[in-house]
């Protein structure tokens, strides 16, 4: 691991201000010039269940991967300590409130019984009592961990007295105590904290003042007592500006740039935040506006987006698995009618409600084949926030150029993690709307003289028809056996055209040296975790490559064949967030090459660098050809 990077975690009940804390910390650290990724893990719950923020802070790079153990654990409650004590590194710090010491594992009602009994077993094995105090003592005595015990109540009382805040209101400042303690141990400068607070609270001066006072006080007390043991070296990142955004945010920003003009949605985790963002940033004055509409369900979402596309607006909808399941019939309609519509699809654990707030990559095959019948579609995936930004724009260009529906397949890991990134470079971004005509009399929407018929909008000078049934060139229902086959081929041939025309870089990327000792194959959010693991193993003398699949339809058959045929297939490992290793299935489907080694994870938590690194070694040593990862809380 990189010794100069800081892995930290803060945990507590949902609704206790963790998200705000993470935002403040991320901004403060970014202001100080550090690269940050901050992942949020939570239940489908508004108040009370355990959630946590897992951060990686780097002075020399922009991290996009997550790993364990953590050096710092900030606990809002006893549940956090019970849940995460094994995540703490030797020499690490745990920050907690004095009152949690007396809390017993069994008395934590928000912890699911199964989790409780699992933790109980671990405690028993280690001979630790069932109260948080005993556990903390154990960590201090046996694991070289320092306990930073604070009296939350006295801090709260202090600000409540000082600023005349009623004590019930003062508890809202609890999370700032953690910020203060972390600021002390990391030595985040005061101006950076103030900056973070200002960004979060804007002009709410009182709130800022109270927070600064509290954070300052805690931070001083902590560093007086413990020093600044986690002080980060000065940033070596040579950036003047950083964009701080979640995956949802960055996609929304990209859609604004892309010229999106109609977005429909029905609320669902982890997609809804994107539409919220667009609702906020939908009016650009003389530069235009986006109509964002919350529909009655996902069926209406996709079908109204299609309607808007027929009228000529760049249009999209954003959803997750359950929502897409409702959209599928409309998706097929867009296919047979060659409608450019973009579906931003954030995968989460399934089936049904599955793991509503956790990540997965198990909808790949579904995206490739969803809908009855056959038609040309594009399935584009992105490995991180930066890729996702440019891909989200390209999704619209491809949709309109080829007149096909596009699925931009993402996941919860990307959606909810906040990262720092360089500001996207718009100088090379293009808008390609494909061949658009005004139509005129006699216009044939599905003119067969071209595979991709010139598109006129409803509302142009033309009159046109669309139907979900097989149709003639005008869009009228037609089932003539000879003609039907021709129209069918017109739609399907687009797959070949797209395969020939779409630049390879948008479809697949290879990272690493030539002739590697082993090759990882992955897509989506596993990208940067793979790259980091490869980097780690390089230090051990293992030369790795990473094949990053981006477009699954049309699939870059030739390129994948070339790469895989050059490799000893026993040294190729597919890495994915699912059980069936669907990307390997897709590869064998399209190329006939079967990848037998896999590292998978399907418990809804992200794949972490440390466990992936270990698993790669295990596979390469021949010990196992399938490793199932499970780390995380």
């Amino acid at each position, binding site marked *: 691991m990189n010794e100069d990077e800081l892995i930290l975690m803060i945990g507590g009940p949902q609704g206790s201000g963790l998200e705000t804390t993470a935002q403040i910390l991320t901004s403060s650290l970014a202001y100080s010039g550090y690269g940050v990724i901050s992942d949020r893990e939570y239940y489908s719950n508004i108040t009370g269940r355990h959630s946590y923020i897992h951060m990686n802070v780097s002075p020399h790079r922009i991290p996009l991967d997550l790993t364990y153990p953590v050096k710092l654990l900030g606990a809002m409650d006893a549940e956090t300590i019970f849940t995460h004590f094994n995540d703490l590194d030797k020499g690490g710090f745990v920050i907690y409130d004095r009152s949690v010491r007396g809390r017993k594992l069994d008395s934590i009602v928000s912890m699911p019984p199964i989790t409780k009994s699992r933790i109980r077993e671990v405690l028993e094995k280690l001979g630790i009592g069932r109260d948080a105090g005993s556990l903390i003592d154990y960590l201090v005595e046996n694991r070289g961990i320092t306990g930073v015990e604070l009296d939350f109540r006295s801090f709260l009382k202090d600000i409540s007295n000082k600023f005349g805040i009623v004590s019930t209101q003062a508890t809202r400042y609890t999370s700032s105590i953690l910020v203060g303690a972390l600021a002390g141990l990391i030595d985040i400068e005061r101006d950076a904290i103030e900056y973070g607070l200002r*960004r979060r609270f804007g002009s709410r001066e009182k709130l800022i003042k109270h927070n600064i006072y509290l954070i300052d006080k805690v931070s001083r007390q902590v560093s007086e007592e413990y020093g600044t043991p986690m002080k980060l070296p000065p940033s070596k990142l040579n950036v003047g500006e950083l964009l701080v955004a979640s995956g949802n945010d960055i996609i929304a920003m990209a859609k604004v*740039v892309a010229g999106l*003009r109609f977005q429909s949605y029905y609320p669902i985790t982890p997609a809804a935040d994107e539409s919220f963002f667009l609702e906020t940033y939908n009016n650009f004055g003389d530069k235009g506006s986006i109509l964002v509409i919350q529909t009655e369900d996902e069926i209406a979402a996709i079908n109204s987006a299609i309607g*808007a596309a027929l*009228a000529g*607006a760049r249009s999209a909808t954003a959803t997750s698995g359950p929502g897409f399941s409702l959209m599928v019939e409309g998706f097929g309609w867009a296919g047979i009618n060659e409608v450019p519509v973009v579906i931003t699809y954030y995968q989460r654990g399934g089936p049904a409600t599955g793991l509503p707030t956790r990540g997965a990559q198990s909808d790949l095959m579904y995206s490739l084949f969803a809908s009855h019948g056959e038609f040309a579609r594009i399935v584009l995936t992105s490995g991180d926030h930066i890729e996702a930004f440019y891909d989200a724009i390209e999704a619209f260009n491809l949709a309109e150029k080829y007149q096909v529906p596009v699925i931009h397949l993402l996941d919860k890991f990307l959606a909810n993690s906040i990262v*720092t990134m360089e500001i996207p470079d*718009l100088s090379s971004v293009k*808008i390609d709307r494909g061949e658009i005509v005004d139509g005129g009399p006699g216009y044939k929407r599905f003119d067969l003289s071209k595979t991709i018929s010139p598109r006129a909008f409803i*509302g142009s000078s033309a009159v046109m028809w669309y139907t979900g049934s097989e149709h003639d060139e005008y869009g009228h229902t037609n089932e003539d056996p000879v003609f039907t086959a021709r129209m069918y081929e017109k739609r399907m041939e687009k797959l070949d055209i797209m395969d020939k025309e779409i630049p390879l870089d948008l479809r697949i990327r290879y990272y690493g040296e030539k002739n590697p000792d082993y090759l990882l194959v992955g897509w989506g959010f596993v990208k940067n975790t793979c790259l980091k693991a490869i980097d780690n193993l390089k230090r051990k003398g293992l030369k790795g490559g990473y094949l990053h699949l981006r477009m699954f339809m049309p699939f870059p058959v030739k390129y994948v064949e070339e790469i895989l045929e050059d490799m000893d297939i026993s040294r190729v490992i597919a890495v994915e967030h699912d059980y069936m290793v669907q990307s390997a299935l897709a590869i064998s489907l399209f190329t006939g090459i079967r990848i037998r080694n896999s590292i998978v994870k399907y418990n809804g938590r992200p794949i972490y660098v440390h466990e992936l690194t270990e698993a790669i070694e295990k596979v390469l040593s021949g010990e196992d050809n399938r490793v199932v990862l499970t780390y995380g809380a």
Partner: protein
Amino acid sequence: MARNPSTYRSGLWIDWCPGCGNFGIITAVYKAFSELDLDPSKTVVVGGIGCSGKTPHFINVNGVHSLHGRAIPFATGIKLANPELTVVVNGGDGDILGIGMGHFIALGRRNVDITVIMHDNGVYGLTKGQAAPTLKRGIKTKALSKPNIQDAINPIAIALSAGYTFVARGYSLNIDHLKELIKQAISHKGASFIDVLQPCVVYNNIYTREFYSERIYVLDEVGDWDPEVKSERVDEMMQKIDQAWRRSLEWGDKIPIGIFYKNPNYSTFEERLSMEVPTYLEKPPAKQVITTSEGRPIFTGDVFREFFSKYIIRTKNNRR
């Protein structure tokens, strides 16, 4: 000079059964379009799926033959993207009140300026005569093996409670009356709904031409019937909804047709959108230019920085 009704015929052979009530509906549509002189390229007919759903193909204006139950969402997307278009939905009773009910309600709530013409034949025509949501309980039409055991929906009452600001009923064989309703519905600003009683000569042997001709009466011919809300007063609106609702319960010896309710003073969705984005009507989604002449985004790097400045952090030490 207004376009002749025949210019609105697409010329396709209409494959409805001879004698089907749908012929009356489409004739009334041709006439209404003609009298309103609708520009075919600025008019869109969106159909659902069913015998009725095929309507767009038979009309020479833009036509979208959508999915079963989904005509309203398609129409909503089209209309909101380009509010200059006249958008009419033609769907069956199964389509609109069965599988598509959620959308039917949603359109009322939004009061988007769309006209819904529902072909109410009491059956699922195209799938061979199963009971539609408007078929009364206890009735056994030809194709049913047993009498219907589900209660019927009252389309007028539902439209009123959903928020439609124009609610009417027509009869497919009273073409001129229906034509007038369609004209008024299209001219009405807001969501309009016409429940059109339509004999299905093949599957509905109960609600036949004879059945209707004995029972139907025209609301306008009732002495003091006035369905229109004239002010923005809530009590007037409530009184008009109340009288419409009472009339909607009549289904027996007498069945009313005509306008049940009309409220031109209620805000449309388009108006609500304009309150938020004042340029909406003038530059709706479909009419905005989203690219420069060089094929580049309207958002340049500088605009991006400014617009999303809240998300951009100027770092402390490494200012370039």
